[in-house]
């Protein structure tokens, strides 16, 4: 019997190694797998390249991982947000590398990586400073730049419900980057608010099919980043 459920957060992230590329779902706090990130902080892996749209807020979740010195490089589209101070300070002092990617290009690079497409052309960023170093090609009279697919050693994402096969459904705008990251991660780890029995998720509404998922861990009442930040919580 296939059952992708693992018993603990610690077990779910146990094999993340130093220098790994880790995709972390979420757009701002929506969809951020805070409990998995905190387990990764406890686990200790360092020198990570992290792919996320942002760089976290306050000193919890992704911001706490960065604050702990575990992230060598961020690949993201918008590394400043409300209550985001950890990344800007490290960036200004040259202690963390940044690869800035337009948001749609980031999403498509992740999707492409997961779909076995090594690269694609897009009009986004043509004629801007983010085009520097990229190959340009004119197709049907319009200019495009070449962008490469992105893959990860691990993807950490959050879902609303999951079943033992790893089929997933999401909650509102928490879906964002989770489905493509599930595809692009060699090992995809999901924290979910509830694990239901096989057959309870209508196959017509499954968003991420279980083939893209390796591990599921149940976190019944996940924390909300904005609440933790408002309360002044820091991790660890």
């Amino acid at each position, binding site marked *: 019997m296939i059952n992708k459920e693992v018993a603990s957060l610690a077990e779910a992230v146990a094999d993340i190694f130093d220098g790994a590329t880790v995709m972390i779902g979420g757009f701002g706090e929506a969809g951020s797998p805070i409990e998995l990130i905190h387990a990764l902080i406890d686990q200790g892996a360092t020198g990570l390249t992290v792919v996320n749209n942002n760089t976290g807020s306050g000193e919890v979740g992704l911001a706490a991982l960065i604050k702990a010195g575990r992230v060598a490089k961020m690949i993201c589209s918008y590394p400043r947000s409300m209550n985001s101070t950890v990344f800007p300070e490290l960036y200004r002092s040259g202690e963390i590398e940044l690869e800035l990617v337009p948001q*749609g290009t980031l999403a498509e690079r992740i999707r492409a990586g997961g779909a076995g497409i090594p690269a694609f052309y897009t009009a986004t960023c043509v004629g801007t400073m983010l085009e520097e170093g990229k190959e340009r090609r004119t197709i049907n009279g319009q200019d495009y730049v070449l962008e490469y697919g992105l893959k990860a050693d691990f993807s950490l994402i959050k879902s609303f419900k999951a079943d033992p096969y790893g089929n997933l459904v999401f909650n509102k705008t928490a879906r964002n980057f989770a489905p493509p990251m599930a595809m692009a991660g060699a090992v995809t780890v999901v924290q979910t608010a509830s694990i239901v029995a096989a057959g309870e998720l209508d196959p017509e509404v499954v968003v991420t099919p279980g083939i893209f998922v390796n591990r599921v861990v149940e976190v019944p009442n996940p924390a909300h980043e904005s609440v933790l930040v408002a309360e002044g919580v820091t991790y660890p």
Partner: protein
Amino acid sequence: MKSEKPTIGLSRDEMAQRVAMDIPDGSYVNLGIGIPERISRFVPDGCEFIYHTENGLLGMGPSPEEGEGEPELINAGKRQVTALPGASYFQHPDSFAMIRGGHLDLCVLGALQVACNGDLANWSTGGPGAIPAVGGAMDLVAGVKSVFVITQHCTKTGDPKLVDACTYPLTGPGVVNRIYTDLAVIEITADGFQLVELSPGVSFEYVAERTGAPLIPIPVSSAN
């Protein structure tokens, strides 16, 4: 350069209302963060616009009532919003397929600078110590059918934001169609900044003086 704060022209809400008047009924629209968000309050009677937020919601509604918001129902500015009847949620690649695939009719963005050839700079001042953050702006200007800019005509220090050539890093070259400011509505044409409409009580000379490239007057035949 004029440095005094203009005491004439439209307020920010009036600017937002003016933009809303020009959005065709039934349009799919993406509103940028800041002043553009105000436009959603001014849908003209009899019109329906469907608002897209790039973090995965089509059919975005207004902010929730106090205490009824959800941390996982937010807009691109990461503020809590609502979903209207008929809304849909989707993943990021689909959201940007809507943008980059040319399915959205219009986006309305803020600006640091707009050049008379339609170049837009709105994501970075490029200054030392600035944290570069582009978000979805470059995708929007590259893919959406029509791009409006809503902005104050001049910076806080009185410098023109409508310029001959952008000095800040570009968001996209030649991408802007129309500019709505506190002083005027201006169309980008092959000949440069074409005045479309002056705000009440504002003269052509007043706007031209505060514009960093030649301003083409409204043709006499179409003036009224």
